[in-house]
């Protein structure tokens, strides 16, 4: 392809910006409405000419507990997922045990099982063991979403680590666990971060487990807070959109500050 001058490429940039503006219009509209406060639906305009924080004030007064719940659940899911998935990913990448192939196959299939199936039976199980309406219950359920993904992402990377690296440590007298902890984990840091970020996003965005595995007000993530608004007849969209904006902050932060990890995850999770 011939190198074209920047001037000739300008139309593409303009078109690209227009396409993106079209695609991101709903996000703009969310932010726009969130600053139009407690007014009624009819009074919203295209620009927040008189920005107010009324929507955020109302949203925070109703949703602060739910935001905290979401943070705790998401952080817990990251810990549980990484604790289980990191050694599993290493085993999957390194050892040729019988059953490993079946296990890898199971992980792929597991990612495809509809959440409603898992919710259906977890509800009855959690009901028996008293995990309904509890943060540990939600963490365990959310980890079902995060773990297969995390294992696949990390083992894809760990396969590229030369086996001699861990073997050298073993020769120096380190056990399997020490070799794993002091060699493999530091080397795989980037893929572990990617897996952790996505575990956080999965749990933060989770809706189906929050919806089905909680039945009262005690434990309610932010996604359910939004859903409660939608279920009723919304009179004022300002607070609803303010809540939606707050629930979007982790995604926006990740997109801005952790872009390379996101790109890695977006591809790795789907193609592997």
């Amino acid at each position, binding site marked *: 392809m011939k190198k074209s001058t920047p001037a000739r490429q300008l139309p593409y940039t303009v078109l690209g910006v227009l396409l993106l503006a079209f695609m991101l219009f*709903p996000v703009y509209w969310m932010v726009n409405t969130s600053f139009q406060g407690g007014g009624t639906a009819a009074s919203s305009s295209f620009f927040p000419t008189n920005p107010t924080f009324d929507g955020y004030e109302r949203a925070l007064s109703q949703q602060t507990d739910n935001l905290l719940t979401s943070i705790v659940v998401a952080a817990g899911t990251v810990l549980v997922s990484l604790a289980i998935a990191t050694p599993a990913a290493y085993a999957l990448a390194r050892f040729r045990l019988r059953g490993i192939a079946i296990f890898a196959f199971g992980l792929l299939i597991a990612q495809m099982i509809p959440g409603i199936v*898992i919710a259906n039976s977890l509800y009855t*199980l959690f009901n028996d063991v008293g995990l309904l309406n509890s943060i540990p219950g939600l963490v365990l359920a959310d980890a079902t979403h995060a773990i297969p993904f995390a294992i696949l992402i990390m083992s894809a990377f760990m396969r590229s680590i030369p086996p001699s690296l861990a073997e050298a440590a073993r020769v120096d007298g380190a056990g399997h666990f020490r070799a794993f902890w002091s060699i493999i984990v530091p080397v795989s840091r980037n893929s572990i971060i990617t897996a952790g970020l996505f575990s956080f996003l999965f749990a933060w965005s989770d*809706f189906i487990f929050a919806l089905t595995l909680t039945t009262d007000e005690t434990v309610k993530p932010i996604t359910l807070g939004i859903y409660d608004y*939608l279920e009723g007849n919304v009179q004022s969209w300002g607070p609803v959109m303010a809540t939606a904006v707050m629930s979007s902050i982790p995604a926006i932060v990740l997109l801005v500050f952790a872009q390379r990890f996101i790109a890695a995850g977006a591809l790795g999770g789907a193609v592997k």
Partner: protein
Amino acid sequence: MPAIAYVVIFFGYPVVKNLMMGFQEYTTRTFYTGEAPWVGLANYAEVVGSGIFRTTVVNTALFTVGSIAGQFVIGLLFALFFKRRFPLSNVLRSLLLLPWLLPVIAGTSVWKWILDQDSGVLNGILRDLHLASEPVPWLTSPDVALVAVVLVNVWLGIPFNTTLLYSGLQEIPEELYEAGALDGATGWKAFWHITWPNLRAVVNVVLVLGVIYTLKVLDIILGLTGGGPANATQTLATDSYRRSFQEFSFGTGAAVSNILIVVSLVFAVVYLRVNRRAVDE
């Protein structure tokens, strides 16, 4: 291995349990009495025999086909567009991921507002452009609700499709196009004879994954319409939810979701075969 134990408990157990529940009379009473009588195929007979079953199957098919067609075509156009490197193309391409990264329910909530019949901005724009004389009842009319739900799901799915297809396009060697250009293959011809055949493996993966993800969509529909109006947007996934968690008839809910699993598994097997072929080649 703790991971194996975890997968067994949180995937193996639910699937098996769900299969069993499909054959049991499993209601809230079960939680107190601990009894869940075996009823054979009665749940399936009830589900398949109920008037709503036809509706949900048709809706699921329409929702899936409509979503995939929209996501894929627009995603492919975007991927082809971004393949031309131009100033800011990388920045724009990564910003495009935003709809996919937001919590689905947050995206759903703003769409519910945009599609609002009386004061939503979409009807406002249509009115100002004189494209619609009457406000369109996007989410409240059985005739258009499914279209509206598909529209939102297409919006959510475009980033995913674009990203995968773009990475597929990157792997096609530039020499192929250079050689093709010598033979007079440019523009549409180049797409048809060079891009498409080389992209086939990625296309298959994207389509099959898209189907699997679309089949299990629950949050978009519950948030926008709750399956209504008059079940116009009720799919297998939402019907399973409705039966289990609104009517507390876990047996029939499990039966519906088992049907959903079987459909997903068929596509999952297709996916694995396609993926393996893609790796072999």
